[in-house]
């Protein structure tokens, strides 16, 4: 057990956790930030995606010990009022079915669009390919990413 100072959504949180605790569970159990979801725990589904220094990263594979000094952003901190262009596009397209995978989809999409603001269809597909949506909302996820990229530009 050790104490870690983690910078999450612009605030520093001091967390006591076992060394090997994945960031996912630190967020969910220690900090009550449950927007980041558990889907597989092995980096396969993307439900747990957060931004670490601006890059989409699987929080189930990261340990608290690796994260001191890094900027972590979760779905709760993506925007102040839920109006990030990607969140807006998600609402406009009415993407979610069960909704469970969507925080991860949104975090993947927003990091991707930061790096590639005007992607083509194939680039969107490649960027989103690693995030599973068991409900099969892929058509709408794709559309929402495209719309968000228009809002960006």
């Amino acid at each position, binding site marked *: 057990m050790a104490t870690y100072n983690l910078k999450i959504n612009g605030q520093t949180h001091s967390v006591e956790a076992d060394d090997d605790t994945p960031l996912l569970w630190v967020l969910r159990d220690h900090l009550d930030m449950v927007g980041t979801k558990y*889907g597989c725990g*092995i980096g396969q589904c993307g439900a747990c995606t957060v931004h670490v220094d601006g890059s989409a990263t699987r929080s189930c594979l990261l340990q608290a010990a690796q994260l001191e000094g890094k900027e972590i952003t979760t779905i709760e901190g993506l925007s102040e009022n839920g109006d990030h262009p990607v969140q807006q596009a998600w*609402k406009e397209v009415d993407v979610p079915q*069960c909704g469970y995978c969507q925080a991860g989809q949104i975090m993947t999409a927003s990091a991707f669009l930061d790096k590639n603001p005007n992607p083509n269809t194939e680039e969107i597909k490649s960027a989103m390919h690693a995030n599973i949506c068991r409900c*099969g909302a892929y058509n709408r996820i794709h559309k929402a990413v495209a719309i968000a990229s228009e809002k960006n530009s």
Partner: protein
Amino acid sequence: MSTLIPSKFSRRGFLRTSTLASGGMLIGFNLFNACKPKAEMPVDISKLNYSDFNAFIKISDEGMVTIFSPNPEIGQGVKTSMPMLIAEELDVPWEHVNVVQGELDTENYTRQLAGGSQSIRLGWEPLRQTGATARQMLVNAAAARWGVDASECTASKGVITNAKGETLGYGDVVKEAAMLEIPENVGLKDPKDFTVIGQDATNVDIDKIVTGKPLFGLDYKAEGMVYASVLRPPAFGQVLESYDDTAARAVPGVIDVIKIGAKLNAIAEKNWTIQMGSSEKVVVIAKTTWQAIKGKKALQATWTDDSTLESTEYQDKKLFEILNGDEFTTKREDGDVKKAFAEADEVIERTYESPFLPHNCMEPMNFYANVTAEKVHLVGPIQTPEPTAEMVAMMLGRDLKEVKLEMTRMGGGFGRRLYSDFVMEAAEIADAIRKPVKMVSTREDDMTTGVYRPSIKYRIKAGIKNGEITSYHLKEAAINVNMYGLIPHFFPAGCIPNYKVDVGNYKSNITTGAWRAPYTNFLSFAEQSFFDEIAEITEKDPVQLRLDLLQKVKGTTDEKIQYSAERMEDVINLVVEKSGLKTPKEGVYQGFCAYYCHNTHVAQVADVVLENNQPVVKKVHVAVDCGIVVNPTGALNQIEGGIVDGVGHGMYGDFKFKEGMPESNNYNSYRLIRMKEAPEVETHFVENTLAPTGLGEPTLPPAMAAISIAITKATGGRMYKQPFIKNMPKKQVIG
């Protein structure tokens, strides 16, 4: 003023009202029964009682409408489309309506509409009638205030207007309305006057979903809550012999290690919603989820074999023994198939095979339980709250009144959350440790201790005489249970004079159950590919073959035949037109099929192209007749989801066993469809004003059929076995 049409659905006393202490009017109603004489309306909004009422509507002094309903949501949008029915007849703008998921008190609990394809169909009349009755009460109250006859007043968008043009908002008259007598048999709107139904209403939880607010079972927390991870037998057919928890107890954060199963096993046979093995289980209780999972990994347990440890080869052998044998139960029989086969010019017989499938809900199974001397409090994602609460009460020897079950939003259902094994475990754990606890399954637990769609095999035989199908014999070999309800009477029942459906099964220790579109999810592929092959063999156009068959069922008086030839023709014609099936494009191979299930008629055409000689599903055109489309955006979402799910599981879904042990346990060994493999879906609705039917399930089964047929067109070879990716014919490349 819009004309009202008398409702066929006449019920008395299904609705009650009260004035809320905090202001506003409360309406409690029941969907299918009258309220009990003793049912009392609450006057405190925090004390809604769902044991006497299915749901409540609150109309505030400001005219805002809140609908409180304990109906779960499983990604099928029922939580949105059902309140729309109330809002339509109540005549309030959808923006003024808020939906709150209620909790469930279980005393004398009347059947709720669980999410699923049936909900919207069953709720269609009663929900609208509730809204209409409430509107009439508000109108009556306004008329009384004005001293005019109610027939001189109209209501629209939350405002009542009299003949002089004076207006009153709903909020202005709620107090008086709550005191009035409840009118009976209020008429319903003509569908052409709908203003809410047929408009896009986004998911009611959308703001919370896109900002990561707590919504799902896994997100629920309570003061002092601990976490539990359960070690279950690694193989079906094994039971716990002994365990050593020394190392587990040494894991930081682990609070306790206990054994459960005795209480649950004593009642496990009592209800179909409990599907689980008979072994005891070891549970690690810890301060956090991660510590509980680590503690479980550190457990040392030994297991003994208690019954056959099945492998996939064993299952295949058993199923073929059934198909090749002659012990069947006949589910439908017309004419004499045997005689017809003997007289046929040609007899075609094919066998189709499907694997087991796990549900893989994105949110793994989990449940919160807190058992105290006073009550049993349960919170989480479950589709069958009523029997679950009853079973928990029975298991713990408690009065049902003491059980309170709250439903959260569900991260996927697909049938898995009909079964309450994980709720029972959580309750047994909470009873033992007497602390608030959340039982959390890991993905591995979830995938390897599931309630699977079992492997099924179909053998279909058809006799052709003078170019016509004169006989048809379908045999089903399944595991644990066979097809149910009206499935044996679906198309082509009624179209072929000599027709027979026979079923048989063997009992397995592997837990099995419903999976999105039970039975039809595979039957559709078998039958529709079979028809496509018959069309090829008899040199007929596959669309015409279906249309010719449908002619023969028209005017049937057989009540078991619920599909409509006319509605089927409509979807077929629509999809043929929109997909360009008659004007083929170079390099695009199209597969056609038409299917009816879950009360909805669907036809699809899949477009497949070859990329590097590999067939790729590019697009699926779908025509749907689901009656009135209540919420188009929700409907399209379900249709697209069903098709993508069907394509994914048809292509990749595979789940094997070796000596009772599942061979896949997470997404690295079980392939789910992803973005690049998902086809574009283009949907076309048949427009009509018939009562709505569900959409959560009916587009999935035909998708598997349509893509398999298109792949056949592309590669020249037929598939008889899922998953297609492993059974795909190689393209014969020339040159």
